[in-house]
């Protein structure tokens, strides 16, 4: 069965190369084909994992368990959706100025990014986990500053610098952990997380704690948890919409996966690390939603809301229980689909109207009825309305918090959820209803989104309802993934 992880790593890389050398007309097709094959592999892998529990390759160097298979499935699904969306987005009028060279780079780098994401969730080597996670930053940096104008360059510079500096502290953490484990395991085996887990109780206490905190800071910066969130709005707002969707949907989730791995190593010995994570999560929730509530820029509002929503994931992980992990994973999946949908629907409106200012928009629903319905689905799901995915995932996280008797956190989580519903519905109402409030919003250019975009948004909506109404369908893989 090793062929599945090998395929998942090889397919995006091979297609990145093919896209790079292919002729212009063939590229969108290759882009779709590559992400499509990866999706089929990821689905098959998830099915196999439910029975086989574990696939290893290169002597446990690559290890796919329930958690890895779940994350790989999510990455593959969202990448495929983004490929569909981008087939229309990359030919929008405002992108016509982007040269062929840059479009080719976009598609190629996107596939390289998909490879680094798969690599991150499937490696079992603690140092290579760091390498792969840093590689996701590097592969996405030029995609973030794709527009290559002043604002995009500034966002790209800050993105690269902050994430690289932040994650260097995780490198120190990795090295310390490895050095402490090596005397017990030997040089080679001490690199593998599954082996480190067996000797975690024997490591010197201070070293273990210091390395865990360094790892959490490094990965937390990458995840955009408060107070390391400032890169999130800049990068999300200035990147092309496809990139914003993948940033919020996947790139900030993969470090949370890493945090989950690290905590599952350390938490049995240091339960206080869970409390720390819970605290950071609650802080992110409060700060993110407050900043989102005050925002008038549509994409920045969605970005700040992402910082708040990963707070729920962090809080779920911080509870350190089966239910907590389960809720965190469910929320990861929910938020990946929902926020991607919101960015895609909001992004096309902003692109056609040529403004992102919410007060300047208005009356869009008449010209773009389908897009407005998709945005509404996303908004209701983000706000945690029953029948949508956000309800079931937030409920699970809140139940986990209740189980841990963290009553203050429960109250904050419920309150933040109401605040979220308020600001996202207000944004919906201001953008889509009423009369156009500026010449941009009344522009002739605004018409219904092209078919591939609508298809992408429809698939995401389907996913949202699938989780909201039939979460038991995903239970086999979630159940495995919640026991890392």
């Amino acid at each position, binding site marked *: 069965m090793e062929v599945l992880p090998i395929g998942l790593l090889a397919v995006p890389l091979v297609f990145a190369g093919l896209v790079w050398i292919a002729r212009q007309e063939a590229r969108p097709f290759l882009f779709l084909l590559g992400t499509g094959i990866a999706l089929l592999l990821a689905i098959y892998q998830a099915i196999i994992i439910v029975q086989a529990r574990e696939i290893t390759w290169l002597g446990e160097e690559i290890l796919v368990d329930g958690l890895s298979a779940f994350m790989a499935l999510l990455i593959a699904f969202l990448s495929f959706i983004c490929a569909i969306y981008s087939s229309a987005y990359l030919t929008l009028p405002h992108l016509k100025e982007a040269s062929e060279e840059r479009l080719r780079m976009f598609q190629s780098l996107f596939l390289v990014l998909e490879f680094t994401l798969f690599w991150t969730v499937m490696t079992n080597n603690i140092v*290579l986990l760091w*390498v792969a996670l840093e590689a996701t930053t590097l592969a996405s*940096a030029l995609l973030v500053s794709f527009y290559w104008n002043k604002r995009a360059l*500034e966002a*790209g*510079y800050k993105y690269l610098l902050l994430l690289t500096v932040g994650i260097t502290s995780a490198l120190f953490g990795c090295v*310390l952990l490895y050095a402490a484990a090596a005397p017990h395991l030997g*040089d080679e085996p001490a690199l593998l997380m599954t082996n480190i887990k067996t000797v975690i109780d024997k490591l010197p206490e201070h*070293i273990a704690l210091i390395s865990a905190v360094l790892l959490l800071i490094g990965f937390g910066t990458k995840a955009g948890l408060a107070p390391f969130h400032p890169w999130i709005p800049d990068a999300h707002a200035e990147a092309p919409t496809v990139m914003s969707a993948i940033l919020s949907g996947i790139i900030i989730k993969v470090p949370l996966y890493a945090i989950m791995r690290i905590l599952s190593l350390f938490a049995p010995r240091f339960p206080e690390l869970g409390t720390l994570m819970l605290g950071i999560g609650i802080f992110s929730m409060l700060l993110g939603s407050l900043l989102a509530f005050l925002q008038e820029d549509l994409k920045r509002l969605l970005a700040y809301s992402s910082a708040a929503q990963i707070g729920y994931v962090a809080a779920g992980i911080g509870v350190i229980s089966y239910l907590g992990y389960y809720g965190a994973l469910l929320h990861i999946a929910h938020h990946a689909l929902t926020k991607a949908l919101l960015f895609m629907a909001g992004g096309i409106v902003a692109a056609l109207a040529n403004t992102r200012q919410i007060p300047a928009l208005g009356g869009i629903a008449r010209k773009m009825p389908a897009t407005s319905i998709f945005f509404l689905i996303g908004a209701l799901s983000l706000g945690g309305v029953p029948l949508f995915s956000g309800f079931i995932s937030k409920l699970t996280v809140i139940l986990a918090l209740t189980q841990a008797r963290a009553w203050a956190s429960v109250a904050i989580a419920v309150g933040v959820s109401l605040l979220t519903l308020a600001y996202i519905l207000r944004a919906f109402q201001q953008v889509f209803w009423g009369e156009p409030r500026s010449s941009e919003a009344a522009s002739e250019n605004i018409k219904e989104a092209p078919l591939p975009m609508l298809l992408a948004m429809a698939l995401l909506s389907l996913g949202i309802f699938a989780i909201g109404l039939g979460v038991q369908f995903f239970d086999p893989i979630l159940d495995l993934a919640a026991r890392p």
Partner: protein
Amino acid sequence: MTAMETIRVLSLALILTSFAAIELRNLRGALWAYMLQALLLVAIIFVFATLHPPLFIWGITALLTKFAIISWLLGQSIHQGEPQEYPPLIELLPSVFIIGLLALATYRLTHTYTTFLAPTKLATQEPFRTNIAVSLTVFLIGLYGILTRRDAIKVVIGLCLMENGAHLSLVSLAPGVRETVLIGIVTDVVIAVWLILYIINEIRRQFGSTDSFRLSELRW
């Protein structure tokens, strides 16, 4: 001179070059200081290699990436713009004071609380103890540079210092780690520096300078 004394002398020189790389206002001068530091780092790794032969490969990797590639990338970028740095937030004199304090603090930390910090028996002994102190100091000087310099090129030099510090700590803490892992780490570092400089070069073209204070369109 024994290996231990050599390492001590080289370590001290490493701190001085880090200081020079951060404090020299002329970017070309700062680049020379950085290059000297990269060579010293390579020299230290080679001295360690006399104790632990597999480290020779590390020395060669460091020579290739830290000295050759990164210096070349920095040089290319510096040649495109003004050689003089934008004045930093903190002047020379307080800087000397702060960096001196940092060095003292890490030295005391690793020498007084050795058993508290060192993950292995070996790391509590010389020359590893001094080596960890130096790597932490270089790391912190780099971070200090990133936080207080206005000029984007200087910020990148600070980042390179941080990476050098982390690299040096690998020599003491994880000499047994295999080459593929090491190559993974340095590849990431080289690509990160290349990408940042690539973006900075375009920033210089569009904004007319590498002053990071002008990057202020994106505020909350």
